């Protein structure tokens, strides 16, 4: 799989079948994401690929959380693809990364989701237990 990853996607760590780290860069000249690299953390359950992996952005000194109306500032991503309903076992790490890359590329609003502060402060659930409302089909 590491043989031919698309541009802007780098596998950082895949030592086991539980957690992988992947770096994603937005290739197209979108001013919001210029010169930044984002780090994604994939957590796989025993049921993968029947069940979706848990995918979040992680932040450290060199990797910020990208601004996007569907990405909370704690790294949680609201994307139907990663939800049980939207997930399909034919997806893989690469296709998820490409989807997120294009989700960022097509974004024009440098903002956090509505209620981000509240959500980030009080959320104690894991992403897979959160029931997102997928209302926005434009991204």
């Amino acid at each position, binding site marked *: *799989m*590491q*043989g*031919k990853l698309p541009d802007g996607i780098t596998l950082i760590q*895949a*030592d*086991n079948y539980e957690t992988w780290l992947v770096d994603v860069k937005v290739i197209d000249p979108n001013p919001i994401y210029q010169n930044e690299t984002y780090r994604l*953390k994939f*957590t796989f359950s*025993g*049921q993968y*690929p*029947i*069940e979706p992996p848990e995918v*979040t952005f*992680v*932040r*450290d*000194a060199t990797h910020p*959380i990208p601004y996007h109306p569907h990405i909370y*500032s*704690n*790294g*949680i991503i609201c994307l139907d693809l990663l939800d*049980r*309903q939207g997930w*399909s*076992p*034919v997806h*893989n790490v690469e296709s998820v990364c490409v989807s997120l890359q294009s989700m960022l590329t097509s974004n024009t609003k440098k903002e956090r989701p509505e209620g981000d502060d509240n959500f*980030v*402060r*009080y*959320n*104690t*659930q*894991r992403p897979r*237990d959160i029931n997102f409302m997928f209302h926005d089909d434009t991204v």
Partner: protein
Amino acid sequence: MDTTFDLPDSTDWLSTTLPAFEPLEAALRCEVCKEFLSNPVITSCSHTFCSICIRRCIATDGRCPSCKSACSSDKLTPNIAVREVVMRFQEARPKALEMARAEKEAQSRSGKKRKLDETDIEDGEPVRQTRSRQTRSKGRHSQSTDPIEVADSEDGDDEFLPEGMAKCPICNTTMKEEQVFNHLDVCPEQNASQGRSTRSSRTKNTFPNPLQRRQKDPSPPPTRLSQLNYALLKEGPLRKKLQEIGIPNWGNKDLLKRRHIEWLNIYNSNCDADEGVRKTKRQLVKELEEWENTQGGKAETKENKMMKKDFDGSGYAKSHKTEFDDLISKARAKRATPKPEETKPSQPEVDATQPPKVNESRDPEPTPHNGSDPYPSQPTQIPIADNPRNPYENNESALATIRAKVAAANQTGSTLATLPSEPSLSENDQVSSHDIGIANPLGSPARKVPMFALPGQPVRDLDSSGSTH
């Protein structure tokens, strides 16, 4: 886990002289498990997957993973052509890959001019030719026993019959066309067994013909098991049913149901297998055991249990009290000697897997701002205590307070996982972690009682789960 990288993969071809084989191999692999299609079946929407993969998918959400259209497992049909192709490809693969790799190495070693020549001849051949020629040349290279192409050439030989002549279909003797019918009645091979005639044709052929092999062994295909109506079935009858089948029947109803579904998946996918490789029931039971250990009742579900809404937080806290106490004392020791660089803000990743411990180690820190303080991670600045090493050493009442708080935190069942919190706040913390203390957990912020120096870990509102619910 170095073995991970030794797994055969379609990308193996990219570094050879035959990169065009990469998509070919990818097409022969299951989109779900990424392995070569095993017992491929085709869905009503014409997508092909491993039988076991698509059955598991359908059991989960009833949809085709490729196109998301509704799918039912009793509409699945074995895709025999694909099965054959995959089998033959796998047979041919090692040798072909080896040759293509060696060729590439030879190319990179030899001079540039030679390399050009070689690619013209060798690289060009398989890629540019038509599909049929390609398979044929590949088959020859890899000593494939592809019966179809051989049969072609044999047929060609057979056509060299003089006009008006025909062959006896049984003994292959050449004779005049009109004689054949009469000959059939007296043909010496007539009474010989069918097996013998196959053998004679095979000695001539030298290649086994899968079609003949299939006809030779005409055992009826096993009937697939059908699903039960789990909603209508009570636990007792379901348990009995599992016993009848001969699979483990312990566990609660949900587990029984899941086990039965998985058994159907395993059993029915075996029905889609080629007769030659069909497994015995004993092997299938073994496979179910594997499932039991990884995803069924014997699976490691520690994490899952904790995530459940009805998780018994206080019970867990009691049964792990010694561990928690140990962690608390460790955390205290750590706090006594603050090392700001020790923990980074990205550390909470670990938290998700060990929620109660994390809460435990942090609970002793003041958390009065749950849900009320808009800036929980910017505590009131207070001077460092005179004796920051052991601020509570002789303060029994303060220690008691902390213990009470710990116990209270355990009781609230605040054992849900917490996610990395807003790190922009924690960055602030890091900057100031040296010179600030924290407010007294019980007193009002205004009292500013010196307590202890902040540890390296930034203070975050991680514990809100306990009180906000």
